[in-house]
């Protein structure tokens, strides 16, 4: 019989703990495919965050370090400076990267650390039960904004890709979404490009991945994908904000 589909080699066969409809699984696979296609599995080190993806180390067959909340870019810096030949990436959510870890991500980008950052923006603190994130949309109800996020109290949601794109240097900064197959393919290309930016020693790379959290939004998986398309993309435009060598 002809084999038409096989598990991506870099993925382990562990059952993922993510909620049904969560796109962490898709993002994990795209990262695994990029590592596989670049042939760098044996020299890749992943940094797992604090958040829903804390156990990412169970799902990719590579070396892993688990980091304190928000500190993944600093941990990645330590590894990369010791082992410049290794391929180092962080996998972080919006609480981890855009709240408690804001200083670490900005300065890793400023130093143009040769690391890759996969930033999952689902507009909420998923693991702790759906509290407000810096990326929570205006009007979005969360357990800590029960009447919806209002600008007067909380300000506007943070656009991380645009923020990092303001930093000088050869950076690769892109925002993608996983709400439909065409966008998943685009996300794949961006993640591959991000890893290539590191492998070719060109500079820092970050891909912001828009993602739905059906559990905390209290909607179905399909509705969560539609929610990303209809509510997140208008505020978080997709595309490449910086490519090594200049502004995209």
């Amino acid at each position: 019989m002809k084999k038409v589909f096989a598990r991506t080699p870099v993925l382990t066969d562990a059952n993922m703990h993510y909620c049904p409809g969560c796109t962490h699984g898709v993002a994990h696979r795209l990262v695994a495919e990029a590592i596989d296609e670049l042939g760098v599995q044996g020299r890749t080190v992943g940094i797992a965050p604090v958040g829903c993806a804390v156990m990412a180390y169970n799902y990719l067959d590579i070396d892993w370090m688990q980091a304190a909340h928000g500190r993944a870019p600093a941990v990645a810096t330590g590894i990369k400076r010791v082992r410049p030949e290794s391929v180092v990436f962080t996998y972080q959510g919006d609480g981890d990267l855009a709240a408690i870890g804001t200083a670490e991500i900005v300065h890793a980008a400023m130093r143009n650390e040769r690391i890759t950052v996969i930033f999952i923006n689902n507009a909420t603190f998923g693991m702790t039960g759906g509290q407000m994130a810096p990326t929570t949309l205006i009007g979005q109800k969360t357990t800590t904004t029960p009447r919806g996020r209002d600008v007067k109290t909380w300000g506007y949601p943070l656009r991380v890709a645009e923020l990092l794109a303001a930093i000088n240097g050869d950076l690769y900064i892109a925002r993608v979404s996983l709400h439909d197959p065409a966008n998943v393919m685009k996300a794949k290309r961006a993640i591959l490009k991000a890893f290539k930016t590191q492998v070719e020693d060109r500079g820092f790379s970050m891909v912001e991945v828009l993602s739905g959290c059906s559990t905390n939004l209290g909607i179905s998986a399909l509705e969560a994908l539609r929610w990303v398309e209809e509510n997140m993309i208008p505020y978080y435009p997709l595309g490449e904000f910086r490519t090594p060598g200049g502004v995209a």
Partner: protein
Amino acid sequence: MPERLLMKGNEAAAEAAIRAGCRFFFGYPITPQNELPEYMARRLPEVGGVFLQAESELAAINMVYGASGAGARVMTSSSSPGVTLKQEGISYLAACELPCVIVNMVRGGPGLGGIQPAQSDYFQATRGGGHGDYRTLVFGPGSVQELAEVMMRAFDVADKYRNPVVVLGDGVLGQMMEPVEFPDDYTPDIPEKPWACTGKGEGPKRLINSLYLVPELLEKHNLHLQEKFSAMERDEPRWEEVDLDDAAVVVVAYGTTARVSRAAIEMARAEGIPAGMIRPITLWPFPVTPFEKCVGRARAFLSVEMSMGQMVEDVRLAVAGRAPVRFYGRTGGVIPSPREVLAAIRDAFKAGEAQ
């Protein structure tokens, strides 16, 4: 002949680290330890290492965590408020069994405090400092020479136990210049680190992690860590004994206050008070053995500190109610004078006589 150099404590600590094979330094500026990172910024690139000034103490200690996880001999240095920020990372380093060296040139606190020398971070250093059940091995050197020696040893014991090691100095030790000798032809003995995350190659994946969601497994991990801490308590205490054989008043002091106390003990002896000193060189594990030698004979123990009384609690634990334990301390950056310590020795001697 060993090389003899005149160096500031901060510089000697940095040079000793490099000679011990440390090639990576991550830190953030803070007085009174800036000469240490500045020395590293000059020297490390010359020996193929990396100096990196981080955006914060939090970032610096987490860079140390990453570098140690990648198998490097690595250190950071700071002073009191900065070391408080590092506690998050130190807890993770201990939990993940990652070796590193942390220098704290202590200044007066609490809060922003001052920039003058103090010993008021003793509790923080010797009780773990961050969250969870863990300990760090803590050295409290008393001279620039001893600072250099314990720095070199610190990297070895950090690797031996796979645990963070703290070198607790103060502004005096960091800033003062003294002659220091480094051993000739010293080659650091750095063990293999097969657990390091360097990319798995063709082998099985490695994981450096402190998350244990099953309570029984987390308890088991803690019991494993505790075995290492017990081994440290058994094998690592170091101390110096000064005039202990006939001492009626036993001063207990480390670092800068031990230097002051040494002068006070000579003055006491000159006026007929047999005073002696236990000078802990490791603050954790605290050296309890020398207390057993003199606890039956001593009229009193006197803990002398640049704090409001922290190490005195360990002295009480070591003496265990068998003799009076007294305390004399100045704090906030004030260094006690030998005359003040002499007065405290006299008081302890007289009070003991009255009993």
